[in-house]
């Protein structure tokens, strides 16, 4: 099954409530996926800085002294904000790749969940309600966000296998479905230099979009490409720094419902996920068409 939620705000006055609204949507989708949960949230931007969200199974050990060690390795100021098993590192924009390499040396067991100007990703194994509590998602503000509750079909129930997946700067993807050609596509993308870390089919979907956009495609064109190059069932909801996109495979057997008002665009695997959004009674609510790309930009 799996449950997907997404919320792209048009009305700035709702931005402080983004995490609160996403949390309600996420918890509603628990019975579609109680194995793990995750959110990607696009929050505030600091000019000239890149945010790296990292995760560790032994956070006390991994984050202790990390700020200083990384600052020394990069010869620059670094700040760290620890939230449970995750930490957000602020590094100068030009040093993001260098920071990744340094982190691999300094803390080999630590995972980089996302990198970008505004994106932060939080995901863990466990019930969506518990995961949202651990990271205090309710307290987070932002411009748009995407969430996922997982019922594992491909790859193990681990933090690494939880969604969202981020394979490019400020990009993320959540998926309901299963891809059948992910192994061959993973090999091809890796040969082309795309970083793919797990055995999960969804990460290949994310990496595919990254690869398309690195080669000049717009988000819309990259989403169109999935219809040609990915085999299997998929509802994809993707985020970029200023965009939000949705695509369903041509068979479209995985459920999806969307709502749009003057204030927001929302996505849910079921209508239940949307019932508490403001003004939903008067929203345009529809089921996205198969093999049709939808996207919005700020």
């Amino acid at each position, binding site marked *: 099954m799996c449950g997907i939620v997404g919320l792209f705000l048009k009305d700035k006055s709702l931005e402080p409530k983004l995490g609160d609204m996403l949390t309600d949507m996420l918890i509603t989708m628990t019975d579609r996926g109680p194995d793990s949960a995750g959110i990607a949230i696009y929050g505030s931007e600091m000019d000239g800085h890149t945010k790296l969200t990292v995760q560790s199974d032994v956070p006390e050990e991994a984050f202790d002294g990390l700020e200083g060690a990384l600052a020394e390795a990069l010869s620059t100021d670094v700040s760290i904000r620890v939230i449970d098993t995750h930490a957000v590192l602020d590094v100068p924009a030009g040093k993001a790749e260098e920071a990744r390499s340094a982190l691999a040396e300094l803390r080999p067991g630590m995972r980089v969940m996302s990198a970008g100007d505004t994106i932060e990703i939080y995901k863990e194994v466990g019930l969506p309600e518990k995961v949202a509590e651990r990271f205090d998602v309710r307290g987070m503000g932002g411009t748009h966000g995407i969430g996922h509750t997982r019922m594992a079909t491909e790859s193990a129930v681990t933090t690494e296998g939880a969604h969202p997946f981020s394979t490019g700067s400020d990009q993320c993807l959540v998926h309901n479905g299963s891809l059948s050609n992910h192994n061959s596509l993973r090999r091809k993308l890796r040969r082309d230099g795309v970083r793919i870390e797990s055995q999960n089919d969804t990460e290949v979907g994310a990496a595919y979009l990254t690869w398309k956009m690195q080669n000049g495609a717009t988000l819309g064109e990259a989403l169109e490409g999935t219809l040609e190059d990915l085999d299997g069932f998929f509802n994809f909801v993707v985020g970029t720094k200023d965009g939000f996109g949705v695509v369903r495979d041509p068979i479209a057997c995985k459920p999806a419902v969307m709502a749009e008002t003057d204030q927001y665009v929302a996505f849910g695997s079921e209508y*239940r996920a949307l019932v508490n959004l403001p003004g939903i009674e008067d929203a345009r609510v529809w*089921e996205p068409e198969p093999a049709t790309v939808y996207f919005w930009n700020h």
Partner: protein
Amino acid sequence: MQTYDLEANGLRGLNSTLQEQNGGTNKTAWEIVNAKGSHAIAVGLNSPIEVTVKGSTGYYCAGMNQQATVRVEGSVGPGVAENMMSGTVIVEGDASQYAGATGHGGLLVIKGNASSRCGISMKGIDIVVHGNIGHMCAFMAQAGNLVVLGDAGDALGDSCYEARFFVRGSVKSLGADCIEKEMRPEHIAILKDLLARAGADAKPEEFKRYGSARQLYNFDVDNAQAY
């Protein structure tokens, strides 16, 4: 009129209460409030009661219905009126996937649009959709009537048997073994009756009829490509 607050009193209580209204009840009219997209509302009913759902529902609303009239004042999720035997289900808004799937009888009316697989494997149910329907509708349909006032998506009636399809708008494509057929007086009569019962403002003469070419009934190697 009996009112049932779904949020306060729960789904199990709702369905057992409605299912208990057999024979001789004087509680014949029910209103369900706070539906909030919940699943399996008013399923398995078996008495001629009238149920109105205020707001949209989730999966399988009014499934397995017999005799009851269920009206949804909103949209419905996947599988509305699935395997309905008799009675009437009316949806004021849109319907998600596989509306009326495997239905054996009764009338399903959707005032808005229905998405993919509407009437899949229908076995005698009548379905009237005021708007459009999506792809793979009436796949393997065996009996009954599917009436569409708007347009139909890809592969209408794929591998169908003796069900009839009446479409007023365009059909994106016909599925394997589904063909356009002559509209004879008896079909006009069937359609006129269905449109009237569904409260649809349309003339039977505006529709085209589709159905099985009967080429796939028995395996024939010359048809292998069509399977």
